[in-house]
């Protein structure tokens, strides 16, 4: 990769002093990318676009929103009714949150399926988990801002989790609240943090991309590129593919924004917050339901009471992801060549959906049992199955190079051309 020569003299002048154009040329234009990425690789760029959409709509919403317990609910309604296209901004922001989580979850499951967390991409994966954690915090605090019934009670339930911490729990909760109950100071700090955290996410995304570009994308075969014939420049190939994926995503997204804008919302959140009336069921947004299920699944264990055990389990369910690169010793990345892992992967996906379903329902009757089994299986998958599979599974032989199967069925000449270069 040599430095490009730019035609525009001003660009040349700037680039000589601050090589930002060379940087963009290398990272966005000629950036070598495996030629065999399928459409599951679209979700990374979609997540980046979703983040940008959230930040832009969020900043405009912030210009009209009042973080005050007496004004918040009304100011959101004013955005919906009196601000020009305020309803559009808010519905994009509200549904954008769901869309962001959806594409990020698909992105994560893609990483799990194709072993994208394995060496040398462990840090890339861990930075992704950090982004997920930050997203959850941001989304939770954003959910509180409209100051509806579910906003208030979700804030109360989630902040109360910290009271489970031994000795200092009570003090931590009061410190979080800025008082003795969820109130005006809580709303104001949540607003400040909801504005701050997305920019922290942007910073971690930069690191995530930096780590990504060190070795480039993993690919559906999970094998390393053997030579330049296995890679293609990012532009125009993946810019074109990502743009098409974006188009499909926007069609679905617009369907929700314009025709079912409250599909993911709880009706009760259109009732102003009332500390004296508890909603029948307090539930988080759909994307946090599996973790909510884990929180409520754990019973008293020995001397640890259920509340604390649940909180530990919930945080552990995310932190276990940090350890995944070392829990899976299999040398083969892609599940395509791991006959057993492939099946357990889908069982795990089903387990996460079951957890979400349990989280959406009150913890009574068979939901308790199912929730406990699903929670146990969640940890079993990472802590027991992954290490064992890596040891005892007999993976199928992986192809010698990316180019070989990708070009199979294509021109025979292309295959012939790829062959000799492999030996180099």
């Amino acid at each position, binding site marked *: 990769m040599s430095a490009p020569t730019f035609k525009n003299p001003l660009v040349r002048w700037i680039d000589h002093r601050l090589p930002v154009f060379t940087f963009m040329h290398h990272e966005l234009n000629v950036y070598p990318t495996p030629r065999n990425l399928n459409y599951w690789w679209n979700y990374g760029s979609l997540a980046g676009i979703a983040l940008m959409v959230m930040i832009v709509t969020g900043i405009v919403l912030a210009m009209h929103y009042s973080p005050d317990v007496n004004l918040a609910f009304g100011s959101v309604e004013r955005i919906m009714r009196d601000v020009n296209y305020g309803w559009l901004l808010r519905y994009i922001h509200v549904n954008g949150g769901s869309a962001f989580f959806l594409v990020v979850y698909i992105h994560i499951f893609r990483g799990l399926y194709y072993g994208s967390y394995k060496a040398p991409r462990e840090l890339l994966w861990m930075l992704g988990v950090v982004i997920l954690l930050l997203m959850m915090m941001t989304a939770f605090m954003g959910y509180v801002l409209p100051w509806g019934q579910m906003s208030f009670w979700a804030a109360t339930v989630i902040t109360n989790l910290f009271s489970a911490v031994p000795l200092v729990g009570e003090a931590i909760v009061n410190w979080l609240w800025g008082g003795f109950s969820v109130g005006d100071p809580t709303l104001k700090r949540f607003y400040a943090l909801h504005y701050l955290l997305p920019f922290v996410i942007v910073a971690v995304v930069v690191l995530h991309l930096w780590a990504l570009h060190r070795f480039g994308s993993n690919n559906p075969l999970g094998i390393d590129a053997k030579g330049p014939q296995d890679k293609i420049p990012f532009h125009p190939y993946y810019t074109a593919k990502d743009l098409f994926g974006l188009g499909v995503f926007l069609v679905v997204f617009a369907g929700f924004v314009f025709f079912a804008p409250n599909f993911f919302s709880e009706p009760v959140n259109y009732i102003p917050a009332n500390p004296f009336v508890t909603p029948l069921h307090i539930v988080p947004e759909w994307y946090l339901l599996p973790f909510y299920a884990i929180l409520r699944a754990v019973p008293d264990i020995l001397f640890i009471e259920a509340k604390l055990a649940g909180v530990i389990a919930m945080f552990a369910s995310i932190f276990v992801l940090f350890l995944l690169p070392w829990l899976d010793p299999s040398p083969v990345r892609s599940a395509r060549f791991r006959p057993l892992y492939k099946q357990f992967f889908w069982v795990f996906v089903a387990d996460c959906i079951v957890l979400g379903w349990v989280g959406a*329902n009150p913890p009574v009757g068979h939901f308790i049992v199912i929730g406990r089994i699903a929670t146990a299986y969640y940890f079993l998958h990472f802590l027991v199955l992954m290490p064992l599979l890596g040891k005892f599974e007999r993976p199928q032989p992986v192809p010698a190079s990316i180019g070989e199967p990708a070009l199979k069925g294509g021109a025979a000449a292309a295959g012939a051309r790829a062959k000799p270069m492999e030996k180099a």
Partner: protein
Amino acid sequence: MRRFAMMLAAAAIGLAGGAALAAEGPAAPEQTWSFAGLFGTFDRAAQQRGFQVYNQVCSACHGLSFVAYRNLEAIGFTADDVKAIAAEREVTDGPNDEGEMYQRPARPSDAFVSPFPNDQAARVANNGALPPDLSLITKARPDGANYLHGLLVGYGEPPADLTVPDGMYYNAYFAGHQIAMPPPLSEGAVEFADGTPATVEQMAEDVTVFLSWAAEPELEARKRMGVKTLLFLIVFTGMLYAVKRKVWMKLH
């Protein structure tokens, strides 16, 4: 288009994993609403009749505080109509030059005047029950329009095994079947300007249309823009697919 929307909804239901609240009462029967569907719009005549029902019946107890009188122009009232409607109510304004608060007739720019100065006053006047503000009522209840309509026509004699205490009324669709609101609508409670017979069913339907508009005044603009946006995006995405195919042709 309708099928597409249904597919979207079906896919999303799968994702949401039944996140909806558990039903709090029996589901109200489904009505046909002109504002449902991809091309839905409000029926202006029904909206205006519904406003009349709200103004002459509901507004005795229920506020509509997020809606301003000027908004009524959007449902077909003229500026003069709106001025006259607003002027029927009194609001407190001030302080004036002498530092005094004073009463004046409401103006089109004012929000709908609430019947009670505060929640406590509302409770005292209503046997301890608080009549909710109706600005968002159809959005704040699952399946809001059907629920509201069902609630308004759902009064009747309780079944033999249910005793309803004094000051409460039996309602088929209210959670727990006991509601503090007396049956608000009775045959001929209002006299519609357009001569439509004011049956309970008719008034319930019309006021539901009006309050659905009050909750989602952007609905018509939203759906109009949505149809255009979707058409554009589908065509544009088709073109992007062609570009992708063309670019990748060299590789395959």
